[in-house]
């Protein structure tokens, strides 16, 4: 091998290490501080003494509801918008550039702005108050641009030859979308959903303003509740001696992310074949 190729290989490997090592250290520090706290009871008990003792059961429930609301709104709406863009707005036209640019800008808006808007709109104007519902809806707004853009890219990447075949056979628009377009784009749509889940689970600022940070079990979607990420923030910043439990909560959050990623990927594998 000639030396520039060899050098490029070495630089690439070093860069990879530069990414992997901090990630490993991060996980290690979470494990070091939090592994001792994790137990079945930690998952099943509600927090006590502002989180210094007890577990995170109530937070798991709150987080679950917030994420469910977020995805139930963001996935169908995002997919709908992406379908509109890919089917009705030809790539390269002015309209496509304008709409795409707007979405990219919305995706880059700092989350705290979504938090303020969510507070004003969902909590105050719509009267939903500090609630899991407000939180989930504000999060949905925040992840929508990302969801739309990644789904749109996946839909646009479906080969033109399939579309031609469909047109020549007068396949209906709905049949085309349902049987060919969405199944073909499914892996790309899954990536959009996974990224959205990641952003939603990691989000703190939006939820401080909308879902609140009450520690108890929520009774309904209109109750305030604390998400895992908010809990980590609070334990680490405001509760002396909260670090081990913050780290343990972080570990649980990472585990949830991994499980959700794997299941979405599995659910939306490239679809093919059997249909009756």
């Amino acid at each position, binding site marked *: 091998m000639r030396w520039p190729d060899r050098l490029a290989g070495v630089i690439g490997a070093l860069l990879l290490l530069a990414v992997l090592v901090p990630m490993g250290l991060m996980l290690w520090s979470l494990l070091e501080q939090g592994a001792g706290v994790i137990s079945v009871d930690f998952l099943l008990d509600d927090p006590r003494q502002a989180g210094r003792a007890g577990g995170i059961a109530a937070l798991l429930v709150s987080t679950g509801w917030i994420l469910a609301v977020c995805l139930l709104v963001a996935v169908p709406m995002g997919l709908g918008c992406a379908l509109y863009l890919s089917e009705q707005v*030809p790539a390269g036209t002015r309209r496509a550039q304008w709409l795409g640019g707007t979405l990219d800008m919305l995706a880059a808006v700092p989350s705290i702005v979504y938090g303020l808007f969510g507070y004003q709109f969902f909590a105050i104007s719509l009267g939903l108050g500090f609630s899991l519902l407000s939180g989930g809806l504000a999060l949905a707004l925040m992840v929508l641009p990302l969801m739309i853009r990644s789904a749109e890219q996946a839909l646009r990447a479906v*080969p033109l*030859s*399939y579309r*031609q*075949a*469909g*047109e*020549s*056979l*007068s*396949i*209906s628009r709905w*049949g085309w979308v349902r*049987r*060919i377009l969405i*199944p*073909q784009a499914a892996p790309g749509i899954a990536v959009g959903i996974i990224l959205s889940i990641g952003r939603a689970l990691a989000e703190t600022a939006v939820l401080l303003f909308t879902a609140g940070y009450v520690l108890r079990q929520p009774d309904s979607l209109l109750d305030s509740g604390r998400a895992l990420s908010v809990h980590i923030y609070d334990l680490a910043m405001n509760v002396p001696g909260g670090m081990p439990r913050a780290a343990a909560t972080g570990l649980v959050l990472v585990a949830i992310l991994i499980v959700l990623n794997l299941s979405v990927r599995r659910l939306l594998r490239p679809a*093919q*074949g*059997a*249909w009756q």
Partner: protein
Amino acid sequence: MTSPTLELQQVSVYYGKQAAIEQASLNVRAGELMALVGPSGCGKSSLLASINRMTDGVPGCSVKGTVLLGGEPLASNRDATALRRRIGMVFQQPNPFPLSIIDNLRFPLAEHGVPRRERDIRAEQALRAVGLWEEVSGRLSQSALGLSGGQQQRLCIARALVLKPQVLLLDEPCSALDPVSSKVVEELIVSLKGRYTLLMVTHNLAQARRIADSVTVCWVQEGCGCVVESNDCRQVFEQPSHPITAAYCAGEAG
């Protein structure tokens, strides 16, 4: 089922203001195979696509002129669904849907409201018609994308036939295939003569001479495609009436 005549009268296809082909007229007799030949860019594929109105989906594309099927002019403003049931199309690149082999046939049947119990019968008929049944009957539920190129193309022809069209438009159906598969597909196309009226774009003059009943030669004149000659196959190759045809068919031009 009877196959009708297919007649084009003064058909022009425009992309924006630029004409791809102008004033093209030709007449395919019932149940015959006409080859549409000519150099690249002479508008023959555009002409083919205008017949089943695939051009509708192309932004800025407009079509003028009349297409007659069995002597009846086709309404140009109506929904293309009914038209495309009568006129099937096969493309250069085999493009089976990313579904199982059987679903490639069931899907269009379902879309056109064929009752469930009839679908498999018609699918089998279509697969037999293209000589694919023996090869795939044991693996109907496997992906169509696992078939060889030639098998895929025959599946695409079966998929066009399953809707029981009267006319088949073929856009260079053999040119993306290896020589062996190409021969099989060519023989298949010959076997469809009589039952269907066939119009086939091809770059392969030898193929046109082998299997076509009539030949239409397109050419580029003044930056725009046109038909220079349309006649019986033997007439075009042995006694061409136009000097361009003579040069083209002798391999001296194009």
